[in-house]
């Protein structure tokens, strides 16, 4: 219906500076040539600022007029004193626009127009996240670029956002979210982090100073096949969606597939289990693409993998009880980061090495990156501690992202200030 198209156009305008508070849309159906003429007279009165949504065309055909608030009385008097009946189609145009905007942001799955109208307080589909990424890049071409570092088993692109103010191969911070697809608060937090980085840069606060000398690399949907599967079929899916010969079971645990203690205790050799390490290290393209990227980049100084749930901050190792050589520094840094996190909403975190704090796990990402020489290798387990688990209510997304960001900043700043 034409009305809706025009409304949509008004929405676009409304997101700028114009307001339609108190405007009404009146409909007149002229029954005589005289009535038609009287309405046509209104068109010549420029000071009324009338906007004819349906112009006068002929007898019996509706005329729709958007009338600004201050012209309402005049127009209605003109019509009434000439005995022309009219109906009020829209009582307050602005109210309708506001309602529509709210609905578009909330329940509808229409794509937002920019990253300011994007809803950070809800979970999104893969398409919506890809759209967000493209919007963010388009809005900030001098800061953000989208890198495709590979393709998943089902041929989905693996996108990394690069935040950089220039230079050549500057030391970089790597953050990945969503490697385990059912941990939805992590991808949602990744989206929030991306926007936060851009905002900080624009306002010259927070990580703006970091970006003067370092790049930030962010992979929001590290396991897109699994993520799509959690939307279409099984919300509790964790692994990739690869099929390896010899089993009817699908998927490899991408955080047991790295080449650090690969296949040792702390992972499963059974393809039908959630911690299946895969047929060999880096068998999963989602993992291999990061490995190749990290190696060819050569200048990553901190590597942070984000998971949920349990509220933990972990550092290597998971595959062995041997303490990491930098254990003391990592432990102290963890304490600082956790302190910063808790300062916001009082959320309690524990911290320590993977094997002493959560469980033995072999083939995990941060054990490999640490052994590659990336000293500041950390794994986060975000909210909560089991009440909702993977099904964390959407209203906790932003608070979780906000508090986690404070911890990330502590780690990032430490990496910047302690070059190696």
């Amino acid at each position, binding site marked *: 219906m034409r009305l809706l198209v025009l409304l949509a156009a008004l929405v676009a305008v409304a997101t700028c500076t114009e307001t339609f508070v108190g405007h009404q849309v009146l409909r007149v159906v002229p029954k005589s040539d005289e009535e038609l003429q009287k309405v046509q007279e209104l068109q010549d009165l420029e000071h009324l600022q009338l906007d004819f949504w349906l112009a006068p065309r002929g007898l019996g055909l509706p005329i729709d007029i958007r009338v600004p608030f201050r012209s309402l009385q005049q127009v209605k008097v003109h019509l009434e004193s000439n005995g022309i009946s009219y109906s009020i189609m829209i009582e307050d145009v602005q109210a309708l626009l506001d309602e529509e905007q709210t609905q578009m942001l909330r329940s509808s799955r229409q794509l937002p127009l920019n990253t300011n109208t994007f809803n950070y307080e809800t979970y999104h589909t893969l398409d919506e996240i890809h759209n967000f990424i493209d919007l963010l890049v388009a809005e900030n071409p001098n800061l953000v670029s989208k890198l495709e570092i590979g393709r998943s088993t089902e041929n989905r692109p693996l996108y990394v956002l690069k935040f950089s103010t220039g230079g050549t191969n500057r030391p970089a911070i790597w953050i990945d979210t969503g490697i385990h697809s059912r941990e939805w608060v992590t991808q949602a937090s990744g989206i929030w982090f991306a926007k936060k980085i851009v905002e900080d840069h624009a306002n010259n606060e927070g990580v703006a100073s970091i970006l003067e000398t370092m790049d930030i690399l962010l992979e929001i949907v590290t396991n897109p096949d699994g993520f799509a599967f959690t939307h279409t079929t099984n919300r509790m899916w964790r692994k990739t969606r690869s099929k390896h010969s010899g089993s009817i079971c699908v998927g490899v645990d991408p955080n047991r597939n790295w080449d650090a203690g690969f296949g040792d205790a702390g992972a499963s050799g059974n393809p039908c289990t959630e*911690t299946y390490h895969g047929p060999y290290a880096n068998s999963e393209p989602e993992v291999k693409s990061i490995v190749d990227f990290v190696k060819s980049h050569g200048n990553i100084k901190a590597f942070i993998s984000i998971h949920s749930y349990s509220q933990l901050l972990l550092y290597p190792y998971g595959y062995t009880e041997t303490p990491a050589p930098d254990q003391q520094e990592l432990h102290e840094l963890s304490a600082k980061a956790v302190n910063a996190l808790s300062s916001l909403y009082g959320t309690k975190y524990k911290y320590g090495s993977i094997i002493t704090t959560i469980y033995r796990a072999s083939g995990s990402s941060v054990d490999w990156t640490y052994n590659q020489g990336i000293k500041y290798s950390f794994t986060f387990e975000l909210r909560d501690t089991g009440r909702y688990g993977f099904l964390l209510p959407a209203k906790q997304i932003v608070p979780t992202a906000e508090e986690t960001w404070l911890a990330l900043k502590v780690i990032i700043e430490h990496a910047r200030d302690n070059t190696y």
Partner: protein
Amino acid sequence: DIDGVGHKYCLELELEDVLDKDRTVSCTAEVLYPLGSKTSAPDVQVTVQGELRSTEEADQEFYNRIRSLEKELVAENIPDSHGNVPPELEPIHLLASVASGYVIWQNSTENTKFHLAQVKHVKQVKRSDEDLQFDFVVLLHEMVSQEVLPWELTLLWHPQRGARVSRD
């Protein structure tokens, strides 16, 4: 270590009221995990120091509401994918947690850590006696193996008589 018997843990715990975060109660517990691969539940002795908040009024309200339903209650996916629980199903979610707690206790070892991941399905079964009966299919998440295991269980509940799991 108790030779020939198992491993005993003495714990000091603080219980936090899930519905009222500022409310905590201290308690002490002794947990004895039996030796061997017998699948028997750990023995648990608990002493609660202090009082648990009374929920009599809310319990009775919920009981009356369910009893007066024309059709038996049926629901799925609590919480849903986005973590939402409709307010009127919140008590069902809590009862499922209680029921799951029993199952978790019966199936715990020193190497497991279970949480209720989701209520896949719940169906009320009308009874001729005064109890409410709910047949659940729940998903239990085990932390070490990361497995999500479906489990069928039946819970009987009454405001005064409390909760009992009748099939696990």
